[in-house]
């Protein structure tokens, strides 16, 4: 069920720290994408990477709703964003 990723889109894991971007698509299977949406990471929400944990650990995100999340880096690579 995973959605093919377009090579041109930027993903959350490579987003510069401190720069805001908008979530475009969740390239995940339906259940996992719905879980992320339920937590608050929905298409259209603005997201900023606050920091990255050491040794390839999770990302610390802040959404425009004010919610802050720790998100696994591999998962962030499946979240497409546009500046």
């Amino acid at each position, binding site marked *: 069920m995973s959605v093919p990723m377009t090579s041109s889109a930027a993903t959350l894991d490579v987003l510069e720290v401190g720069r805001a971007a908008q979530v475009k698509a969740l390239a995940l*299977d339906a*259940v*996992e994408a*719905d*879980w*992320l*949406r*339920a*937590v*608050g*990471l*929905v298409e*259209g*929400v603005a997201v900023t990477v*606050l*920091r*990255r*944990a*050491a*040794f*390839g*650990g*999770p990302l*610390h995100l802040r959404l425009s*709703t*004010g*919610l*802050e*999340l*720790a*998100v*696994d880096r*591999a*998962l962030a690579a499946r979240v497409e964003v546009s500046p």
Partner: protein
Amino acid sequence: MSAEVALTVALVGRPNAGKSTLFNALTGGTVKVGNFPGITVEAVTGQTTLEDGRALRVVDLPGVYSLVGAGDPDSDEGHALRSLDALKGSPHVLAQVVDATQLAPALRLTKELLARGQPLLLIVTQHDLLVTQGSTLDVPGLSEALGVQVVAVSAKEPGLRVKLLHAIADVARLGPSAAVRTFDDAALAARVVRHDGGLKDRLRARTERLDAVLLHPLLGPLVFLGLMTVLFASVFFVAEPVSAAIDAGTRFLAQHLEATLGPGRLTSLLVDGVLGGAGTVLIFLPQIVVLTVVLELIEASGYLARCTFLVDRLLRFVGLGGRSFVPLLTAHACAVPAIQATRIIREPGQRLRTILVLPLMTCSARIPTYGLLIAAFFGARSAWFKSAAFVALYVGGILAAFGASLVLGSRVKRAGASKPLVLELPHYRRPQARVMARLAWRTASRFVKDVGSVIVVASVVLWTLLNVPSPGGGDVVVPEGSSEKVVAMHRSLAASVGRALEPLTQPAGFDWRINVGLIGSFGARELMVGTLGVIFGIEGEDAEAPLAERLRETKTASGAPAYGVPTALSLMVFFIIACQCMSTLAAVRRETRSWRWTGFVVAYTYGLAYGLAVLVFQLGSRLLA
């Protein structure tokens, strides 16, 4: 409390929305309020009275983001969903607790709840915080758009309980809303929360300042390691003066009893049995309270969620994950709630692995044994050495758990895809002193009750078994010059059982006395010290000598010291690993729903504990000889 329940209200909402705070406000209860997503591990129930005098049952459900994807029945979502289904058929109200500052994501859950057709009330919390952020909430507008009653509250507002009861009774009377409205959650949230700007978000500013240090790539892990070390060392440092006072108290009592009652059976039962057993365990009350309170501080402040961020990568390396950190840390107080807390782990394989290794973490019931062994064999060392020994024992438990997880690795798999970490990082909060004080009091009274019941009974039973002669025990060799009661103990039933096991346990350095202690503590490891207290209490000539001293000075039949440092180390290793706890095994059985895995925990922990104890004793005897 037994009045017939006329109405049930179920508090449902996202993790960390403030359900437990409202639950406490409604029931006057003392549910601990976490600042970690998903900390209410099972539905908590309380009871109160409605304004018209009828009984209201209040159910605090585990926090959930969504109920739709509740595929795993063991997850928090699965538990919440079952609880909601169970409410149908009796008068009830679902009260969705919504953090005012997180309205948009919460409205997704509102949509799901509306679709269930059960009477729904929206309780918007943290309204004061929203106001300090310079925003206003259009309560009537939100109520109109959703077609449900909405009440906006702040945790500290006076009259909160009455306001909530009133709203709950209203919704119960009106029933579910007639028509399900359609709405776009983001758009609706944007419409009803008006931001006037101007005011600075102080809470966020504080969180940013703290995170800059606590989540700093270099400082963060250092602070984390430092805090964990201080935590485990403080168990020793902070608690020692209080422990010494309790110890002096019980010894004074023993002396007093001997002086008043004179020598005899009853004196021996009271002094050696009850005081020697239960009194010795009581010394460890302060350690257990300190540990429980500090762990709670870490959670309530919001630092616990940061820890998961810091250690996720490391834990993934050993086959666990960031979400495993919560149960792993909780297990340092007690493995039983920790095993329940694994429900927040979304990946079944990872959850099972976490459950299987949790019994290795150093729970507070091990503290008495560790404290005793350190006092007995390293008593002359400095306080720094002794606290370092304590920290080393904690680290030993953690390394054992990591090692076990690595070995279990891919062998423990359950259906379900790998689920990467997604976790809310809440704002830091100042823990409430009142809640902490209550927790300390509860922990202390539970421990005293435990000592007063289970440990007293076990001590008395053991004292009896140590005084009943064993058939054929008459020719047991006893150290020369032993008193009558020591001779009787050496020839008792308990001693003969312990002695029968000696061929098996001698390679680990355990003699019959320790074997009796190990048998006595099979179901609950905290009985070890009480058990040893009884044995050495009978053997000791001087009622005033602390147990540690008696342990050190015990001689074998040939007159040589019975125990040395190798025995202490071997026993410590055994205690780190063996799962001597019936309650833990019951929790493993409940959460894995498998006798096979429960049996596995017994087999692997005892097998490993014995093997390593033998290794340590053999190496220790050769190296230290």
